């Protein structure tokens, strides 16, 4: 039990600003550096939420917040889908997501909440809908004198626009999904080895979690990756994950592979496979 006495908004933002002063040590930063939290949003349609955007750079920066579409390939890559290419499900997702503000100017160290909600239409069929929310700094116009810089030959002035994209998932109705694992193996690429695994998904919703590989009879994972999703647009995903040579050696032999929900979501087992990796 604790006692809190402050208004929702003032404490929310004041605490955020205060936290920036004792946070992790960050590199000396540039215009456009940013922090986003959380990194994944699930809306069930009943109420909205907030995503925090913070300017962790050393200069004032303006950020643009947008929603975009991505489609997962059977190799697990999220590829951009234009609005013209969007299917019905994707168009419905774009229509139902509301968010504000869409452009924020923040001084260094200042966070702001972006409000986010979904308004599913009454006749919307049950299903999982998804957009990806992007946060990117808008570069400042370059000073005129730099533009007019004299050059004997050709010089290039490039400004990176960098940012973060997080999924926003809207679940409408009662949805389920099951996953089966198969065909694990190690492949050797040009520069390194890769762990591969096939995930087969059935049902209406996505699954999301961590992959843990344990030596048989041992509960400590020798290899673990977090944040592995398989979205409804794919029934089968071939997961390809980079391995160090030590990890590749440790994976060989009889193993148990588990796909579990993320610890913060309860860590329940979604699928498991006992096999041997050669």
């Amino acid at each position, binding site marked *: 039990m*604790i*006692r*809190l*006495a*402050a*208004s*929702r908004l003032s*404490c*929310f*933002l004041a*605490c*955020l600003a205060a*936290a920036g002063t004792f*946070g*992790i040590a*960050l*590199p000396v*930063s540039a215009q456009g550096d940013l*922090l*986003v*939290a*959380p990194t*994944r949003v699930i809306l069930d349609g009943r109420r909205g939420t907030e995503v*925090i955007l*913070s300017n962790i*750079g050393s200069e004032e920066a303006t950020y643009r917040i947008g929603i975009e579409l*991505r489609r997962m390939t059977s*190799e*697990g*890559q*999220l590829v951009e889908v234009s609005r013209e290419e969007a299917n019905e499900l994707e168009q419905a997702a774009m229509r139902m997501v509301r968010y504000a503000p869409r452009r924020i100017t923040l001084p260094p160290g200042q966070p702001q909440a972006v409000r986010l909600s979904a308004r599913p239409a009454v006749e919307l069929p049950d299903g999982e809908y998804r957009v990806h929310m*992007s946060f*990117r700094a808008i570069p400042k116009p*370059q000073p005129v004198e730099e*533009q007019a810089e004299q*050059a004997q*030959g*050709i*010089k*290039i002035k*490039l*400004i*990176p*626009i*960098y*940012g*973060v*994209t*997080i*999924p926003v998932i809207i679940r409408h109705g009662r949805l389920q999904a099951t996953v089966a694992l198969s065909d694990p193996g190690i492949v050797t*690429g040009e*520069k390194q080895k890769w762990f591969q695994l096939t995930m087969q998904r059935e049902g209406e919703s996505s699954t999301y979690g*961590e992959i843990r590989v344990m030596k048989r009879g041992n509960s400590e994972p020798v290899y673990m*990756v*977090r*944040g592995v999703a398989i*979205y409804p647009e794919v029934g089968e995903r071939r997961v390809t*994950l*980079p391995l160090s040579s030590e990890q590749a050696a440790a994976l060989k032999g009889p193993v148990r592979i588990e796909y579990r929900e993320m610890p*913060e979501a309860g860590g329940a087992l979604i699928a498991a496979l006992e096999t041997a990796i050669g």
Partner: protein
Amino acid sequence: MINKLRMGAAGAVFAAALAGTPAFAADNADATATAEILESIDVTLVSGTSLDFGAMVVTGAGTVSLDASTGNLDCSDADIVCSGATDIAEFSVDTASDGRTLQINLPSSVNLLRAGGTAGNAADELVLDGFNSDAAYDAVNDEYTLVYDASGTNEFAVAGDLTFDGSEGPGVYNGTFNVSVEYN
């Protein structure tokens, strides 16, 4: 009344939110608090780094390539002479979750425009493509992946290729390129 305490996982985000009740209404009342960890991510451009090809004198068509893994400049085409220091852009990613997989998206191609030039005029435009990174690259799927290592540096570099048709005039060519870290 239920009060909710939300904490940013990387230590840089900390938020407290009170649900529902007006300000100061519960001045002397006990309340149940629940803690929710919010995973955060931050992306920074490593200070002092930029994608810089130096200076070039171009008398014919050719390509100048920067390799993000080595920082090496390939300026071997006969009609292009390169000089000056070069650099690659480096980005740092920080999140709280060890083992987190992140997709890194690079553009396929961007057009650069000469200062004072006209868009669409070939002599004023230059193509930057062949974007590459030192992050783990899956050549089969053309995908860059970063697996966050809590004990590592978690940086990735970005470079690319400049393609000249030989008609480009001298001057400063400006452009932007998008780099995004994609959660799945």
